[in-house]
Each structure stands twice: as structure tokens, then as C-alpha cells.
């Protein structure tokens, strides 16, 4: 895979930062500064959770339930405890008094009326195969795992349910008895006269799109280390995306003052939502360390990681449209199979999957319902796309079906329905879209992909009897979500601190999953202070060092943490300016900060580092050099958040809306159903770009993740209620030979609601890629008169669709 950047915007010096805070323009691309620590990561010296070495470190292993639903009658650990190297064992009953319920990442009770408590080890009942039941601590992981195998558990096996429709049916086994049924929450989003418009529209279509259970499979799995100090201080190392909220929640679970806990988020080998907090193993290692009096580590195996679900939904969707291709109404009934809930962040994806409608289109009548249904599968956590990929797939499939029905080009149908640039900010039931030029993005991707050529190739191929498809898709990605009531917020806090040497430290509450946002933040601060990026160090992930923040989620790092750092840098700059004015005897207002120098119009100048040194060494001593504090902490969040419903009952929990257009060609092997991607082009618009290299890297990665989800990745359950994909031989991730050259381009439409004009990059691209590949495959199947709407579109699934054509006599 290679990337071909087509943006012709020139690189400018420094980040795309406006003194006035006015958002940048199309030309304001940032610079391709190399990633801080990039060499360390590439050469294997980055250091991850498993590289943390503590004296006396012990290892934990977890016994997991083999049953999807069962009552725990007895747990016997005596034999296990007697095995070599074993220090201690712990059962769910024993853990009850040591750790309370784990606070939810998103408590469903904040949005609805149901919730449930989850603990570090199951006591009473297990709700999914793989649920932690008991734990062992031993000197080595080998001994710990051997001892786990020796623990005996008596279960009373209960009826279970893994299908979301069956879970809602009368008489289904109920996971949480006090609920009475298995419906966690219903989210609904509607506007206009849906009934009426469906009745009067020229055309209507309905279809079903089924999305498989799959996840993000970060290269580094999770891991945690807990270590208690003699004064009752807990140090917690975690491969985790949100160290401060995790600290708060550990304090709650463990009943320990928050001031006694320090969480250190280690360097992440990928996050993607898999490392949002709320997992049972987080308090578990703390309890085990407390019991043993030594540091305890737990590492997630790949099989453990593959228990974590996401994305499994079915859309039953209807669309109404006119002869000219205008979509006039939408109805969707979404059912999300969220597994056994848990305290992690997964269920919220069902909310977002509904909220994301009607995407980039001007549809005034819609009625969307999304049900989060609990089943005896392992719980979800967040997964990049966070439900937006689900909505995009269903919606974009339907738009293609509209084009097909009318005999129109799918690009044209999209053009006719896009919200236009002059309509922003644009309201839907639960979004106020910030800004955009969707048609412009579509034009760019049409050009980049050579769309018309691709269509000609397709025509030729079809004459030869080949199944070649061209897929078109558009993605709108709500970002920067702010959810009052939980520790998931849109704002964040950064400190900018100047050392006597003139070096600058930024301490921020946002963390990085490995995307390079530390370098982006350094670029913003360096540009503001007129110094080199190399002279700015960024500190993240240490709760004792950094201001309280919400970590890594929803592509918010530069919007929030970067914006806060810019405000703090401006404060510091004003103090440096005043000091320099005194030291040079010049008017402070005219001073210019550039390339490490602070220069007056007269030409008199002093270096940034010299001014810093003098502020530390001469303040107060020199008359009027009286601002010795070269440090500021500021909090910032995008302003397009509306939590109090307006007169029409509308709210907007997401402030920014990056978007992207995708076009791909695929060929389907008629005999085997196997799909080969021939070409791929994507153009994204995430507002102002601070570092194009990172944005392109994230966009490429997102596209590949979308391709993997569209074609191969799946976590299937067997008849016994067990996940059968435990390794990368069953869970097929894309590899380089699976991918074509991916061409990416960009457009810049700044957000008027963020300090920098940024909209957020990182998550965007997954949704468009899933939808684009699904549309391409279905376009390839068009001559056969069949659709393939059960994801992923792997060989067997596509061949199943082809077989439908054969039985209808269309084929051969």
C-alpha cells in the first residue's frame, strides 16, 4: 500500500494557527514535522506496559467462565493454591468485600432508566463465556496460568441467548432479572412528517443490512500493573486511553481517596476504543496487589482481547424518494447486540448509530430507533467509528439502491441530496453540523479516483462477463463528543510551562494512542511562541503530573487539548512579551516572536531562552520585571455543544463533523465469491490540518480498518455460546497484499466552533470505507440481480448471494 497525497496546498511555516483565533483557510495546512519519539518506536525502544519492570513483580491469570449463562455454585481454589509458584488465589465471593462495582464509562442510567453493576470477578452468576470468575497470582505467568487450570468451579448451567431478536422475544432467558426483559435502552431520533411523506413519495424502498460482531484488534493488547506503596498509595500502570477517569473510577471501586492513586498510561500500541476503561481486570490487579503486598501484572492475551465485541447491529431501513433522486424520508429500526453490557463504553455505539442519521444529506423527515439489546455474548467496548460506521453503511447502501432504482449515477444522487455549504450550521434532531463542503469533497474524490474511467472499465469488464464493481460512499463523522453525567467530556486542560533554559513543557489531559497528537500539540505551542518544535516537550498520561483530562476519545485531542495548549501558550507569550519589553526597553506591543528570537521593530532583539533565564533570575530585582510566572493552565472545548434542548427539543452532543468521500473498484470472483480490491481513493475534510503526515496516516489506517471490517473480520459465536475466533488465523485482518494502492487527498473546511478550525482526525475514514466496499461489491453483483447485505462480504457470504442468482436462473 502506498499513499498518494494529492492536496496541492503548500506547506507553511509553523502550525496553522491564527493569532486571532479565526479559523484558518484552505491554504492553512500545517507542516510535516516528524513525530516525536518516532525513532524510539521504530527501533523498538518505545517501551510499553509489558516493558515496565518493578522489583518483585508478580503475575496474574484469570479463570474465565466456559458457560454463557450459569449460576456459580462453588469455586474451589485449594488445589490451585498448592501449586508451585502460586502466591494467592481469589474468587468472586472473596472479592466482593475488596472492590465495589466498577463505575461505567457511560452509565446507561444517565440516558435511560436501566443499568447494572459489574465487579472484578463474577459472583453469583456469569453472563457470558469468558467472564472472569477467579484469579491466581504467581511468581511467573506460566505458573499462574497452570494454577488457573486447577481451579474447580461448580456451575448450574442456565438457558442463554446470543441472538438479539431472540433476546427480545417472549420467554427469552433474561440476563438482569430486575429488568424483566433484555432491552437496555431505546434511543430515538426523528423530525418531520415521516408517515405522510412515505405515503406521498414517488418511490419507497426497504431493505435489511446486517453487520457482524467485530472489533479493532490493536497490535498491543491491554495490560495493567498495580503497586501499593507503604503509605497506602496505589500506582497503577495501564495500557489505557483515559488515565484520569480511570483513576477516579478506581478510587470509587476500591474505596480509596483519589489523591492516593496515581495512574500512568503507558505508551499505547493502538487504542481505537479497545482501551477505554471499565474492564474487570482494572480493579482486579489492584486487589491482587493489595492481597500479595507486591506489584501484580495482568496482560491480556489475544484470545482475551478477541472476547471484546463491538458493532453487531441489524438495520431494517426504509427510504422514500422522488423521481429526481431527492431523498425525502428515512425510517430505520436498528437492533444492536451489545452482549452482556459490562462497565465499558460499548453500548453507546447503539445511540450514535441512530444519532448519526441522516448523515450528510438534507432529509427533513426521518424516524430512527436504535435498541441496545443485551445477550449472553461478551460485552462490547468502543471501536473506532463508534456506531457511525454502522449508520454510514446502512444509509449509503440505501442511497445506492435509490440510484439503482432510478437508473441514476450514485454520485449524482448524493450530489442532489448533500447539505450545501451555505446551509451551515445545519440542525438535525441531535446534531448541529458545524460547516462543510460535502459536494466539494465528492468532486475531489471523483477526480482523484478517475471515476469516469473506472465506470468505462466496468462497462468493458461486464461485457466480458466479469463482476467488476465501483463503490461510492460518503461519511459524516460526529467528533469530540461531550457527555455530561459521566467522565467523558468535550473540553480538556493543558499547562504550558517555560523552564529557565527557555525550553517549554506542555502538560495535557489528552493522551495519545500512538497517533502523534503530542507532536501536533508541540507544533501549536511552538508556532505560537516562535520557537522550534524540538524545544517543546509534551507530557501525557501521568495523573500526578498532568492536569485532569479525559484522555483519548472521539478524535478530540487537538480540538480540546491543542486548543487549551494554545490558550495557555498565549498567556505565557504575553508575559514573555512584557518581560522582553522591559529588558529591551522597547514597546512590548510591537515585539515579534520568531525562530527563537523576540524582536522589536527597531531590530533590537533577545533570544527566547535569554528572556526566560532573566525572568527566573532577575524578576522583582529589576524594576517593572514583575511577572515571574511563566506558566499557565487553561481549559478549552469546542463551542458547538448544546445540552439544553432548544425550542424544538434539539441537542448537539458532538461539536465537529469531519467528513470524507470514498470511491473504490472491486472484482468479485464468480466461482468463489472472493473480492479483490482493484483501486481505492479517499478524500477527507477534517478542517484545519496541523500535521498532514499524521492526518494522512490516520486516514489510511482508518480506510484499511474499514476494508477489513467490510470483507473479513468477524467474531462468530457457535451454538454453545462461545466466541470461536481466538487468533489471527480465525480473525482475518487485512495485510498489505490484500490492499490496492490507496490514494488519499484532502479538503480543508475549518470549523467555526474550534479555536484552530480543526474538526478532529483519527476516527474518520472507517465508516466511509466499510460503506464504499459494501457498495462496490453490490455494484459488482448488480448484473446478477442480487444484493449482499450480510457483513462481512467474505467469499462464502458473497457466493451465497451469487447462488441466489443461480437459483433464480439469472446465472448460467
Amino acid at each position, binding site marked *: 500500500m502506498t499513499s498518494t497525497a494529492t492536496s496541492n496546498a503548500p506547506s507553511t511555516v509553523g502550525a496553522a494557527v491564527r493569532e486571532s483565533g479565526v479559523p484558518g483557510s484552505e491554504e492553512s495546512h500545517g507542516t510535516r514535522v516528524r513525530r516525536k519519539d518516532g525513532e524510539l518506536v521504530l527501533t523498538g525502544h518505545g517501551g510499553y506496559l509489558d516493558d515496565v519492570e518493578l522489583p518483585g513483580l508478580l503475575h496474574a491469570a484469570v479463570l474465565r467462565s466456559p458457560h454463557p449463562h450459569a449460576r456459580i455454585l462453588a469455586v474451589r481454589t485449594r488445589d490451585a493454591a498448592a501449586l508451585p509458584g502460586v502466591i494467592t488465589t481469589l474468587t468472586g465471593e472473596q472479592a466482593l468485600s475488596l472492590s465495589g462495582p466498577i463505575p461505567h464509562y457511560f452509565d446507561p442510567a444517565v440516558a435511560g432508566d436501566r443499568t447494572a453493576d459489574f465487579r472484578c470477578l463474577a459472583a453469583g452468576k456469569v453472563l457470558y463465556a469468558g467472564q472472569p470468575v477467579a484469579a491466581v497470582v504467581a511468581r*511467573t*505467568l*506460566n505458573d*499462574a*496460568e*497452570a494454577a488457573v*487450570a486447577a481451579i474447580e468451579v461448580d456451575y448450574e448451567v442456565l438457558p442463554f441467548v446470543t441472538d438479539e431478536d431472540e433476546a427480545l422475544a417472549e420467554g427469552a432467558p433474561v440476563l438482569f432479572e430486575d429488568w424483566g426483559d433484555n432491552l437496555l435502552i431505546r434511543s430515538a431520533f426523528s423530525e418531520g412528517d415521516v408517515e405522510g411523506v412515505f405515503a406521498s413519495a414517488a418511490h419507497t424502498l426497504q431493505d435489511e443490512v446486517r453487520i457482524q460482531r467485530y472489533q479493532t484488534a490493536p497490535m498491543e493488547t491491554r495490560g495493567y500493573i498495580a503497586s501499593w506503596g507503604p503509605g497506602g498509595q496505589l500506582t497503577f500502570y495501564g495500557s489505557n486511553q483515559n488515565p484520569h477517569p480511570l483513576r477516579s473510577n478506581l478510587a470509587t471501586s476500591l474505596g480509596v481517596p483519589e489523591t492516593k492513586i496515581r495512574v500512568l498510561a503507558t505508551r499505547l500500541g493502538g487504542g481505537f476504543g479497545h482501551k477505554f476503561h471499565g474492564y474487570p481486570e482494572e480493579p482486579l490487579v489492584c486487589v491482587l496487589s493489595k492481597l500479595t503486598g507486591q506489584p501484580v501484572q495482568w496482560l491480556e*492475551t489475544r*484470545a482475551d482481547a478477541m472476547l471484546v465485541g463491538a458493532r453487531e447491529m441489524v438495520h431494517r431501513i426504509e427510504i422514500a424518494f422522488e423521481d429526481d433522486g431527492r431523498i425525502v424520508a428515512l425510517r430505520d429500526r436498528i437492533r444492536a447486540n451489545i452482549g452482556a453490557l459490562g462497565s465499558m463504553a460499548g453500548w453507546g455505539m447503539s445511540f450514535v448509530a441512530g444519532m448519526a442519521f441522516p448523515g450528510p444529506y438534507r432529509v427533513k423527515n426521518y424516524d430512527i430507533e436504535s435498541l441496545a439489546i443485551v445477550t449472553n455474548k461478551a460485552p462490547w467496548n468502543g471501536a473506532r467509528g463508534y456506531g457511525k460506521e454502522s449508520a454510514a453503511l446502512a444509509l449509503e447502501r440505501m442511497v445506492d439502491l435509490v440510484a439503482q432504482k432510478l437508473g441514476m449515477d450514485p454520485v449524482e444522487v448524493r450530489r442532489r441530496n448533500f447539505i450545501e455549504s451555505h446551509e451551515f450550521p445545519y440542525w438535525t434532531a441531535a446534531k448541529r453540523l458545524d460547516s462543510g463542503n460535502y459536494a466539494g469533497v465528492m468532486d475531489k474524490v471523483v477526480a482523484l479516483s478517475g471515476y469516469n474511467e473506472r465506470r468505462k472499465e466496468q462497462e468493458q469488464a461486464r461485457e466480458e462477463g466479469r463482476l467488476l464493481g465501483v463503490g461510492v460512499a460518503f461519511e459524516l463523522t460526529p467528533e469530540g463528543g461531550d457527555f455530561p453525567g459521566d467522565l467523558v467530556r468535550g473540553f480538556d486542560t493543558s499547562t504550558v510551562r517555560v523552564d529557565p533554559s527557555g525550553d517549554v513543557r506542555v502538560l495535557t489531559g489528552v493522551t495519545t494512542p500512538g497517533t502523534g497528537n503530542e507532536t501536533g500539540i508541540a507544533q501549536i505551542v511552538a508556532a505560537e511562541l516562535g520557537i522550534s518544535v524540538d524545544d517543546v516537550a509534551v507530557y501525557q498520561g501521568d495523573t500526578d503530573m498532568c492536569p485532569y483530562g479525559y484522555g483519548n476519545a472521539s478524535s478530540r485531542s487537538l480540538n480540546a487539548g491543542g486548543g487549551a495548549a494554545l490558550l495557555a501558550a498565549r498567556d505565557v507569550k504575553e508575559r514573555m512579551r512584557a518581560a522582553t519589553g522591559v529588558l529591551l526597553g522597547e514597546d512590548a506591543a510591537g515585539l515579534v516572536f520568531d525562530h527563537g528570537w523576540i524582536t522589536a521593530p527597531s531590530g533590537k532583539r533577545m533570544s527566547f531562552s535569554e528572556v526566560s533565564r532573566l525572568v527566573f533570575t532577575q524578576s522583582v530585582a529589576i524594576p517593572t520585571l514583575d511577572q515571574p510566572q511563566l506558566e499557565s493552565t487553561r481549559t478549552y472545548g469546542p463551542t458547538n455543544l448544546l445540552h439544553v434542548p432548544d425550542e424544538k427539543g434539539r441537542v448537539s452532543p458532538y461539536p465537529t463533523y469531519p467528513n470524507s468521500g470514498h470511491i473504490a473498484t472491486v472484482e468479485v470472483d464468480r*466461482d*468463489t465469491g*472472493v473480492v479483490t480490491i482493484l483501486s481505492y481513493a479517499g478524500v477527507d475534510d477534517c478542517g484545519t490540518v496541523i500535521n498532514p503526515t499524521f492526518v494522512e496516516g490516520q486516514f489510511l489506517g482508518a480506510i484499511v480498518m474499514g476494508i477489513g471490517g467490510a*470483507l*473479513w473480520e468477524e467474531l*462468530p459465536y457457535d451454538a454453545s455460546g462461545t466466541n*470461536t*475466533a*481466538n*487468533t*489471527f*488465523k*480465525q480473525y*482475518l*485482518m*487485512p*495485510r*498489505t*497484499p*490484500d490492499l490496492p494502492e490507496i490514494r488519499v487527498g484532502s479538503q480543508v473546511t475549518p470549523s467555526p466552533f474550534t479555536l484552530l478550525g480543526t474538526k478532529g482526525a483519527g476516527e474518520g475514514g472507517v465508516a466511509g470505507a466499510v460503506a464504499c466496499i459494501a457498495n462496490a461489491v453490490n455494484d459488482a453483483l448488480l448484473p446478477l440481480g442480487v444484493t449482499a447485505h450480510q457483513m462481512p462480504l*467474505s*467469499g*462464502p457470504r458473497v*457466493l451465497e448471494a451469487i*447462488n441466489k442468482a443461480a437459483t433464480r436462473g439469472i446465472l448460467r
Partner: protein
Amino acid sequence: MIRTSLRYHAPNSLPEACQILAEAGGGGAVIGGGTIVVPRMTRGEQSVTDAVHIRRLNLAAIETGGLGVRVGAGVTYTDLLNAPAGDLPGLLVTMAGGITGGRQIRNQGTLGGSACYANPSSDVPACLVALDAMLHVQGIGGPREIRAADFFVDAFSTDLRLDEVLTHIHVPDRRARAGYAKLKLSESSWPIATATAVAQFGQDGSRSYRLVLGGVAAVPVEVDLESLVDRDGALALDAEDAGDLLHASVEEALLEPWADELAPAAYRRQVAAPVARRALNQLNKEIER
């Protein structure tokens, strides 16, 4: 992590290796490249008391003799790829180059190890059957020779006894022309279906063909090609009824298709014939060259 204490052995002689395996009973495991046994132990899928590494047994040679070639059990896929041209049947080289897992696996994994693991979804078993290879094993009772077609007993099960070590694989005719087709769902997928078509030429100019399918059943499946051979002894693949004839032959041979997480039995049944046809077409092209 490997949960059990185990003894690691690197014996200097075959008798010693066989003795260790005999004493270990079911707890012994022979390690060639370790690409199968070690991850299985790490995941707790296989419990081993005695791991017997063959690295000191001098089993890594490729030796030609007459028309045939003898491939040591410790020969890696990379060794196969690097062998001098003509030393090996082209099929083995093609197959080795397409092994899933990339360079690390090809450098470490061995042809013999894969044969002994007998994974239905591996490239190796069907190739060995198609080449009519002979597997030479050594046990406490002495050496044995087992035809590839008899070696693979069931999924993950071979004719090897607990005390036996595979020493080498003998391929009788290294000039055999072959066509090889493989269906995978993606690059990292195990093969879902493979087809190996081999032609052998007699001194009198006669030809004989074999078609062996892999991945589609617990063990390699040999398909009768008689109906496709014309009067001149050529494979008549362009005949109007060739597709149907091949389909019928495959149906007849493939009694119980394999199923796993990646593909159900019905899928394997349906793709077996098209994959076979690709191998046969390739074989015809090879013959024409």
C-alpha cells in the same frame, strides 16, 4: 504462556530421539521449526512434557538421486525456495513461496513439520499426496516408509506412532509437471481449498495425471480424472462437457467436506471444482511449455 514444566531435548541421534519420545508417551512433541507446537503450548492447547528438537539430527538436507529427491524433515520453506533450480519439483517451490505467514514463518517452518501436523487447511499434505511422496520415519522398532496417501489418517492425525520421527520425504519424480491453485479468503487466511494437478510422463511417452484437493476435507482427496483424458492422452479441458465432468468427479470424491470458522462445508464443496479447474488449466499450460 507455557503452563507445564517440560524437558527440552536436542538429541544427537535418531535412536536417542525415539527413545525419549517412547518414554514420554503422549507427552512428547517433535519440534522442527516450532511454528506450530510452540504457539499451541503458549495458548494452552497442547500440553507437552518432553519437547524433542531435531536440530542436531542432520535432517535439513535436500539430496537428489536418480529422478527423485529426498527432502529432510528439517528443511524449511525458505530452503525449498533457495534450492538450486531442478533439484525440486516446481510444485514444492511454488507451494513454499505461497505459505501464509510471511518470511518469518517460511524461515522457520518446515515441510516435514507441516506434514506431521496434518492440518486439513495446510498446503502441504495434498501436495505430498499429489507428488506420490514417500514419508520415511524412524522409530524404536526401526525405519518405516509410508505413502503420503496413507500417512494422513484424519484431521490433525497421521500414521506416525508416538515414538516415531519423520526423517525425510522422498519425491520419486522431481520433473513432474504440476499446476497448483489455491483459494484463500484473504492473505492471512488458511487455504480454504487447494488443488494440485500433476502429470507424469512415462518412457514410452504415455502420460498419467493426478488431481489432489487439499483444504476441502479432513485429509487430501484424490479425484479421478479419467473422464477428462482424451484419446491422445491429453487433458481435454476445453471440451463442452469438461466442466460438468470435472464437477461430477469432484462431487464423487469429496464425500465429507471440511468446515471451520472461515468457511462452511457447503462453501468448500462448491469451490472445490472451480479451484480444481484452475489447477488443471495451469497444468495444461505447463505441459505446453
